[in-house]
């Protein structure tokens, strides 16, 4: 019924690392919530079901907990359903997760042959006899990636995560998405092994696309939680790049590199859990104080909420993959694994991998820009609204949640070798050789890439030297005893006020302009000019809304099609009000005819005859003459 191998335990640890600080935070958040019982019940059931998913050892239990996880998270989004958008987001989330579940269900049904309580080994046996493994792979992919939020199944994330209460956003984005990653590890290794090359390339491509698209949409977002949600898409993309590389190397027989890439993916999974939870927590703290998710209404919060601001800064550095943070280390590993592929002799890989490298590099640059925006607009400068003015630091429990999570982030940064050793054990548990010795050949100081002529990074040295140089300089500054005076900002002589600051929209302006072809933004510009002068105006407002391309292409059109279909079905069904006997007559005719045609000797002639007779009969008896 349950399994407790290293993989499961590592993910249990991941969930606990994500959940325990979150429980503290949630305790502090609780007074803010009206339906406390509802919230508490689903909150703990949610955590419980996530643990249930990662330790379940058969399909029945897995699917049960999986659906329970969806159900509880859906209810959690609805905890504070005061706005229509929240309700819609919850609905959208639930239908998307159900969509994924459909494919998961099919996947499990095929690999279990209907006996849902068999173990993974037997599943593997059945799967190996199945004639179309790629079909299984795609079912699995659709099932898990719709939960993980990879492109093009990512659309629900920027709606669902902001709508949930902040502790829940942190859990959903930080932890729940990882459960899907667990699913990929578990079932690709334990059931669908070995993998054809195409599978790895598919995952690599999806990962590269997700990372780019996620960060691009994050940049154009003003809703702080939606911004973070879009970053989740990006990071899931990065994890998938690592995962895809691992699969590719495995197919090519380069097992050491493969293990390295998988460790990188796992490491990034952990990192993303830590910093994304922290980001959502601090964003939630800001939201809690200012009662708005709109970044344009923040500003200057670092002065009143120093701990929140520090927590956000740590997480922002980490998610932007700046050295020496943990986010940097895992991305470094993924880069190294990709670069070790230079001597592979396969043209499709030679084309795919540089693109993935490019996507990852591009993502890194854009992520920095995005987090400068998020941090700068939220915490720096002057407050932009009265809400921000009256904000103050959150209560003790929320603070302690953030501090604990910050410790998780820092521990991932400082104890990297320890974690890597642990992830290495996971891979050993999945039947690989240990590569820990190759990653840390001489002590914990230098982390080596396992590729030929691979690079080396030394997280601790970097950290210490950065800290040391900065401390030294600050010490020198103190020793010098420079005279300091506080005065109004100069700003070329203009008066500084909250209104003269750059807005989030303005900050992202240049990048948005560059990616206009993707965003297709909807711009509204209104200006009250004075006496017809173009340059003199009393007030002006500028709004820009980015059109979600994927949503439009995939989802709106599906909704339209369903609507269209239902309209026609509805019209058709209303015939039965008046023509029920004719309906029954015709269905009898069809059934008997078909039995006659198919039961006995089948021939096309009779089939065509049946068809024609049926058409005539339907026309005369049901549709009738046009009045």
């Amino acid at each position: 019924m349950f399994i407790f191998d290293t993989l499961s335990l590592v993910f249990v640890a991941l969930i606990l690392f994500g959940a325990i600080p979150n429980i503290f935070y949630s305790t502090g958040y609780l007074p803010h919530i009206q339906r406390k019982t509802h919230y508490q019940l689903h909150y703990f059931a949610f955590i419980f079901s996530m643990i249930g998913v990662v330790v379940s050892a058969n399909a029945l239990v897995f699917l049960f907990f999986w659906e329970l996880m969806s159900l509880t998270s859906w209810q959690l989004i609805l905890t504070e359903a005061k706005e229509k958008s929240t309700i819609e987001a919850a609905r959208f989330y639930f239908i998307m997760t159900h969509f994924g579940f459909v494919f998961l269900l099919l996947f499990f049904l095929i690999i279990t042959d209907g006996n849902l309580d068999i173990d993974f080994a037997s599943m593997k046996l059945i799967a190996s006899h199945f004639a179309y493994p790629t079909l299984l792979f795609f079912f699995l992919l659709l099932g898990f990636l719709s939960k993980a939020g990879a492109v093009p199944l990512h659309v629900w994330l920027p709606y669902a995560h902001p709508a949930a209460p902040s502790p829940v956003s942190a859990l959903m984005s930080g932890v729940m998405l990882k459960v899907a990653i667990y699913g990929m590890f578990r079932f690709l290794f334990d059931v669908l092994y070995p993998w054809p090359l195409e599978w790895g390339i598919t995952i690599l491509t999806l990962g590269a696309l997700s990372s780019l698209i996620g960060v691009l949409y994050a940049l154009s977002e003003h809703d702080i939680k939606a911004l973070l949600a879009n970053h989740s898409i990006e990071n899931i993309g990065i994890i998938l790049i690592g995962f895809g590389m691992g699969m590719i190397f495995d197919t090519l027989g380069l097992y050491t590199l493969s293990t390295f890439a998988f460790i990188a993916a796992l490491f990034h999974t952990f990192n993303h859990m830590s910093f994304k939870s922290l980001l959502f927590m601090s964003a939630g703290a800001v939201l809690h104080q200012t009662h708005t998710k709109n970044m344009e209404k923040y500003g200057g919060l670092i002065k009143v909420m120093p701990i929140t601001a520090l927590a956000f800064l740590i997480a922002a550095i980490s998610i932007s993959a700046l050295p020496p943070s943990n986010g940097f280390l895992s991305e470094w590993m993924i880069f190294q694994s990709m670069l070790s592929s230079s001597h592979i002799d396969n043209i499709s890989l030679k084309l795919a991998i540089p693109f993935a490298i490019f996507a990852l590099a591009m993502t890194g640059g854009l992520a920095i820009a995005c987090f400068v925006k998020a941090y700068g607009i939220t915490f720096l400068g002057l407050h932009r609204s009265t809400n921000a003015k009256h904000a103050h630091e959150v209560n003790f429990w929320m603070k302690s949640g953030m501090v604990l999570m910050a410790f998780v982030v820092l521990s991932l940064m400082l104890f990297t070798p320890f974690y890597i050793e642990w992830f290495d054990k996971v891979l050993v548990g999945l039947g690989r050789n240990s590569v820990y010795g190759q990653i840390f050949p001489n002590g914990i100081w230098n982390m080596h890439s396992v590729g030929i002529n691979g690079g080396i990074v030394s997280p601790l040295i970097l950290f210490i030297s950065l800290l040391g140089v900065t401390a030294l300089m600050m010490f020198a500054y103190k020793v010098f005893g420079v005279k300091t005076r506080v005065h109004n900002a100069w700003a070329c002589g203009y008066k500084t006020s909250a209104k003269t600051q750059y807005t989030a929209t303005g900050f992202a302006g240049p990048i948005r302009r560059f990616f206009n072809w993707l965003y297709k933004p909807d711009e509204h510009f209104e200006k009250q000019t004075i006496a017809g002068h173009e340059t003199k105006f009393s007030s002006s407002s500028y709004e820009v809304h980015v059109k979600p391309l994927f949503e439009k292409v995939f989802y709106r059109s599906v909704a339209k099609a369903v609507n269209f279909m239902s309209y026609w079905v509805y019209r058709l069904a209303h015939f039965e009000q008046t023509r029920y006997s004719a309906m029954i007559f015709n269905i009898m005719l069809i059934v008997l005819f078909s039995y006659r045609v198919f039961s006995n000797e089948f021939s096309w002639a009779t089939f065509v005859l049946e068809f024609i007779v049926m058409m005539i009969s339907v026309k005369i008896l049901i549709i009738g003459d046009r009045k």
Partner: protein
Amino acid sequence: MILYLLSIVLLVLLAPILLSYIKATKMVLLFKRPISIFQGYRNFAKLMHKETIISKETSAITSYAPFLVLSPLIVTMFFLPPIVVGSYYVSFVDAFTITGLISLSTFFLMLLGLDSASAFGGMGSSREAFISALVEPAMVLTIFSVSLMAGNLGVGQAGVNLAEHFPKEHMASFLFAGISFFILLIAENGRIPVDNPETHLELTMVHEAMILDLTGVYLAIIESAASIKFIIFASLFASLFMPFGLEFSAPIAILIFIVKLFIIATAVALLEVNTAKLRLFKIPNLLGLAIVFAFLSLITFYVLGA
């Protein structure tokens, strides 16, 4: 080891001179009376004596960020390829780390810009974010491509390898990478077609806008960070794309290296004199070029092996 530390100190000392040299060269070319090449030092000394004025809109970020801007760059200095054969060098640090360190410095610089609550700071940060977002991928790709050609992902080792064995068989990739890197050098250091360090005009400035409200020691730190950044780029270019002259004995090799740096500086000055500042939204064209070349270089190496 001593040579290693010495060369770092030398480079740090050389940094302000190099920037002043560019400015002087430009002035000569424009038939102005050139400034002294030690003008950088004079400015530094002047700023160090001034009191620091902190605007009251700012927060703790302003008092920490300048150090955090400078320290990653100083750390980076230790990771550069050697300028003399036989000197100690950190062989293993790769492109991603170096780019990351530079980005870390830029990250705090941008926060610094936003902290003062003035429109200029935000504008500068916004533009810098835009430019560096495009620069970073190109830079990672370029350096990776070169280090792959050199046969080692560690930049230090790559520099040595290139000096020992020039990758003639990968000339195409090498050339693409070189072009790309030179564009990056200009863009990252706020030189003319991308930014104009000499004016304080709101339409043009990027780097200067971010530090508009800094004075005294803080400004001095930021200015020296800028010059160190230039020297990092210049010496990376010198080591990776002009990989010769290392095998001579220490003084001559160092001299050759300094000459290389001055050649690069002259090239930058010439370019600055001959081009006009680009509009902000035209910059992506230039940076796009850099990205394309970087990508081309990587893919040429990958697919064609050329």
